[in-house]
């Protein structure tokens, strides 16, 4: 398939990203502009930006592909993606904003006063960020190959270059505008073709979809393996708790003007996500109408992009495909820029800035280190995406969620609500959660799904790894009461006291 229209749509989306990103270049002056957009983003704009950033390749292409393949059980994924924000709202949104930290490692250090916990958190941010970037690059390659016939490496490369340019140019200020625009681009690009295709399907005598047995039955064995109830529950737990631990999600909370703004933003985000997630199942079902069986050599991830060509012919089919391809690219670009943004922030703070300052004796402008970091942040996952076999977009994204759920979620929740958390406890929780999740998922990736209970437990570790990490953090904290930081009460006062109450807020920047 080679459509000049689709190519034009992809180019248009990339150019929009660069132009809107360039606007931010003129507005970004201070360090806080680069990291948190000067903390003055209104709830509406911020909610669109969060929606734009969060809806990745997995949501735009992956969910419809999985629904096509496995039916109703895959609807738990978008439900989990959305409820993740509900959990985030009630447990961490306002305290996170009130913490006044720039990034997750900043929060860990401010709460626990420990360089070591900060370093481990930084390492995890980069690991989770890169794990999440890989499927974005793969999705871009897949899309561009499908709609233009370009070789597989081109799509990822385009996304990498555009993202590095946009992040390096204006940091968070420009990214906020870019992502707010891209939410609406994505919603339109998925909704308009959906209605057009539904109309065409209806006019064609609305043939019933040909479905495999159990496609309609919740928690059937039609999904990826046995023990569907355990697997589904574990996935939902990973998504609900993992959302708050994703580095690109939390960094957005620091851009709200205050804690109340952070809460309002989240409510709007839930509405925007819910609106978007009404659409992928439509494509899954239409896919069942068009392809009773998946044709040879076709990945189910590409089903969204193939349906218009089958249902509509000639120019209208090309136009609809072009819209979807443009929307998919908006998804890769916005998620990848958010991830690149947080990975860049950590690399800059932890690695590049101290070294750059030493080489140049402090002469280099701090923005330069940020820009070098932006390049490093995207090149490595791009290379990884070229050498690893694609696992399925939503599956790879699920790994990042599981890792975030077992490491950052206990750290953040206990840090916000439990005064007796000690440095050793937090560290033990991070290490136990991280190592057990990586080992379980690594075994599954290396050896394939083992089947039976062992396979289910290893492929979906969240349901046991999260409580394990939690328990470790609590038990170790209780065993080391002398390592509870002396600043705990002061920090908790700051996290929970509403802004209107005049308490000292030491170290609050900007």
């Amino acid at each position, binding site marked *: 398939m080679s459509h000049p229209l689709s190519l034009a749509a992809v180019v248009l989306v990339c150019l929009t990203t660069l132009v809107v990103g360039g606007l931010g270049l003129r507005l970004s002056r201070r360090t806080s502009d680069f990291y948190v957009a000067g903390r003055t983003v209104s709830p509406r704009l911020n909610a669109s930006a969060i929606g734009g950033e969060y809806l990745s390749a997995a949501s735009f292409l992956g969910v419809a592909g999985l629904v096509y393949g496995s039916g109703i059980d895959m*609807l738990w994924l978008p439900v989990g993606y959305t409820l993740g924000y509900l959990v985030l709202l009630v447990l961490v949104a306002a305290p996170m904003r009130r913490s006044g930290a720039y990034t997750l490692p900043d929060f860990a250090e401010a709460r626990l006063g420990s360089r070591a916990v900060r370093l481990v958190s930084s390492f995890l941010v980069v690991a989770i960020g890169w794990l999440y970037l890989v499927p974005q690059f793969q999705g871009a390659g897949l899309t561009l190959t499908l709609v233009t016939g370009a070789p597989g490496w081109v799509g990822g490369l385009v996304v990498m270059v555009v993202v590095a340019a946009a992040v390096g140019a204006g940091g968070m200020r420009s990214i906020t505008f870019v992502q707010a625009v891209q939410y609406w681009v994505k919603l339109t690009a998925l909704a308009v073709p959906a209605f057009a295709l539904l109309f065409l399907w209806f006019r064609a005598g609305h043939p019933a979809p040909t479905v495999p047995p159990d496609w309609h039955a919740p928690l059937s064995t039609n999904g990826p393996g046995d023990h569907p109830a355990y697997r589904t529950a574990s996935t939902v737990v990973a998504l609900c708790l993992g959302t708050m631990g994703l580095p690109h999600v939390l960094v957005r909370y620091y851009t709200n003007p205050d804690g109340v703004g952070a809460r309002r933003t989240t409510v709007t985000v839930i509405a925007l996500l819910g609106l978007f997630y009404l659409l992928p199942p439509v494509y899954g079902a239409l896919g069942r109408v068009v392809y009773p069986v998946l044709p040879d050599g076709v990945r189910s991830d590409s089903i969204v992009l193939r349906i218009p060509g089958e249902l509509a012919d000639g120019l209208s089919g090309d136009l609809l495909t072009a819209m979807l391809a443009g929307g998919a690219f908006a998804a890769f670009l916005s998620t990848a820029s958010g991830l690149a943004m947080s990975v860049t922030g950590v690399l800059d703070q932890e690695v590049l800035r101290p070294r750059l300052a030493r080489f140049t004796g402090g002469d280099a402008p701090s923005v330069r280190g940020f820009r070098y970091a932006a390049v490093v942040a995207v090149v490595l996952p791009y290379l990884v995406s070229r050498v690893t076999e694609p696992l399925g977009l939503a599956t790879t994204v699920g790994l990042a969620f599981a890792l975030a759920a077992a490491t950052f979620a206990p750290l953040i929740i206990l840090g916000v609500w439990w005064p007796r958390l000690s440095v050793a406890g937090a560290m033990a929780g991070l290490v136990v959660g991280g190592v057990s999740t990586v080992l379980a998922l690594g075994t599954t990736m290396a050896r394939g799904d083992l089947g039976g209970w062992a396979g289910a437990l290893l492929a979906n570790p969240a349901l046991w790894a999260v409580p394990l990490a939690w328990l470790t953090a609590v038990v170790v904290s209780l065993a080391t009461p002398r390592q509870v930081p002396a600043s705990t009460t002061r920090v908790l*006062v700051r996290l929970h006291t509403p802004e209107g109450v005049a308490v000292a807020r030491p170290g609050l920047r900007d």
Partner: protein
Amino acid sequence: MSTDQQTTPSRVRVTSSRRGAVPVGPRPPVRDLDEQTALGDVYLAGLMRAQLRLSLAVVGLTVVGLAALPVLVTLVPDAAGTTVAGIPFPWLVLGVAVYPAAWGLARWYVHASQRIEADFSEVVEEQ
């Protein structure tokens, strides 16, 4: 040191009446929060407990809501086959109904948590 020594002024007794002093009286509890007195800790613990109870209530409601569908389908297998406007009922629940429910719950939470914070501000800032 200058050489021409000045005569040291004679000592003066400095006194002050308490009339113009700041009266020692009730002070707003927000100072206790700031200074982390035992009283301040009680206020903070109260705020955190109220907020956490509200948060856990929302999480609990979410878990119950999510578990309801699988439980219903297990107990009443026929429910899975029920269709509304041609769409099987479980699809409507998982694909559509979840989202407005989550949104409503979120709105309610924001409202309730803001109430807790307003009450707290009122208590700690009163003279």
